[in-house]
């Protein structure tokens, strides 16, 4: 049995970076937003991740963002990062961000350096080596997309 690769500082560390662990343990903007104007649920039926994203959009601008629910470290950290990133952005820009992040993580678009406001999202890049986990990382961003498009159904990542 070759345990060498198990010991190596490795893709696992790259997936579970400090920033990700921190956000998953101490999610920012966690909880319900009572005066939300937009909301959507993200469900990953494969692993049971289930998040609800709340947004308050004022004059086309995301004025506040929160989420609740439960999920793995990746999906919670991704949602937490999302809430930090989108607040203050015009709705249109937030939608662009959703598209960029989903493209980046699924490998659909090349991983060029993201917009400055999206910089932190590079912490999730490690997920590209873990195809089964990409859906966790994109879940909240799918929900963002649904919420801003006022789709009422739950977003699923399957």
């Amino acid at each position: 049995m070759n345990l060498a690769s198990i010991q190596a500082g490795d893709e696992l560390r790259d997936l579970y970076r400090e920033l990700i662990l921190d956000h998953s343990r101490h999610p920012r903007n966690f909880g319900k937003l009572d005066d939300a104007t937009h909301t959507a649920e993200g469900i990953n039926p494969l692993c049971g991740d289930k998040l609800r994203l709340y947004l308050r959009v004022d004059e086309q601008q995301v004025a506040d963002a929160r989420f609740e629910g439960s999920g793995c470290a990746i999906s919670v950290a991704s949602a937490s990062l999302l809430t930090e990133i989108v607040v203050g952005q015009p709705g249109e820009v937030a939608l662009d961000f959703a598209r960029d992040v989903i493209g980046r993580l699924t490998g659909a678009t090349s991983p060029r350096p993201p917009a400055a406001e999206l910089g932190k999202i590079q912490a999730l890049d490690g997920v590209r080596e873990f195809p089964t986990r990409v859906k966790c990382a994109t879940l909240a961003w799918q929900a963002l997309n649904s919420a801003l498009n006022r789709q009422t159904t739950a977003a699923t990542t399957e």
Partner: protein
Amino acid sequence: MTQARLETDRHAPLAALREDFPALQQDIGGNGLVYLDSAASAQVPLSVIEKMAQYQSHDHANVHRGVHTLSHRATEAYEGARDKVQAFVNARSRAEIVLTSGTTEAINLVAQSYCRPLLQTGDRILITHLEHHSNIVPWQLVCEQTGAELVVAPIDEAGQVDMQEFTRLLDDNVRLVAAAHVSNALGTINPVRDIIARSHALDIPVLLDGAQGVPHLAIDVQELDCDFYAFSSHKMYGPTGVGVLYARESLLDSMPPYQGGGDMILEVTFSGTTYNELPYKFEAGTPNISGVVGLGAAVDYLQAAGMSNIAAHEAELLDYMMAQLANIDGIRLYGTASNKASVQSFMLEDVHPHDLGTILDHQGVAVRTGHHCAMPVMQYYDIPGTARASLGLYNNTADVDRLVTAIEKAKQVFA
């Protein structure tokens, strides 16, 4: 497998069978694969793979309706597999062995053909809280269709059915009891003899969901005295797409067909159709011939290994695994019934099962994570899911040791 590893294993004769499974000979991410997900689907021995390939290369044609040589060979192979299954579970007759696409279809067949014509408002179906979705949703659907009610016997912290509550719920309004033989999420072996005896005392038939029973225990449907027993080929080292419904002949006789089509009829006219005899009445359309041939080969394989050997080996290994896991700091075990088979669910403090699964996989250890199609069990424990290690005949103590090492690594990553 090296000789050294063989010797660490306490059932050397069984342990040698590991060599028969090509999928187990591969590395995942640089480490030898440790497959601890047999409860989801077992690996397939070479003899089964080859038997199917040989059938498809040499003997395939449609069954039952042909006089030509290949059709005859295919029919003999298909019906021969049915005979093997009959002997394997000790059914009284081959008419009692209905070949389906899996446990799920077998249970839906009973819900629609046995229950649906029978159920009325006020009637009840009694299940337990530890069932797989395949033994919940078919009953929900038929209850919705008929106005009957689905009632659920609760479980305790160890993951055992509360037999006192079960008995209280078992009254004259219950038309069928449906219970897992073995829980796929918790490993609990239900007290099925007790369940059957109490139900039969009130003339209530019992369906056992044997998806996790057949691979791990020697099954004798006559001795169990159950009325229906459903199981899947792919959990018992056979191919996917095949399952079995054992049912008492008298029950099958009284049931209308489930699906219409070729092979399930004696005569079709536009003014009326006469159904075929058992078990064909319930096998509409071209069956999964190569899959059933594979199931037959899997039965041969299991019989050569010996179901009691397998049960003994797995029981010992499960004890070892439970003890090793319990030693890990920060772990919590789910499913600690006194009577268990094959499965251990667990959570590592602060680590979501999905993350844990990824970290184990990265080290070549395959476990299942999530709700295991038993969401009510997760709701009972108020957890999103578990990690689940499940054993097959090919596992050994070295596999368990690898699991433990991999969990320790996960703790480091999340430290």
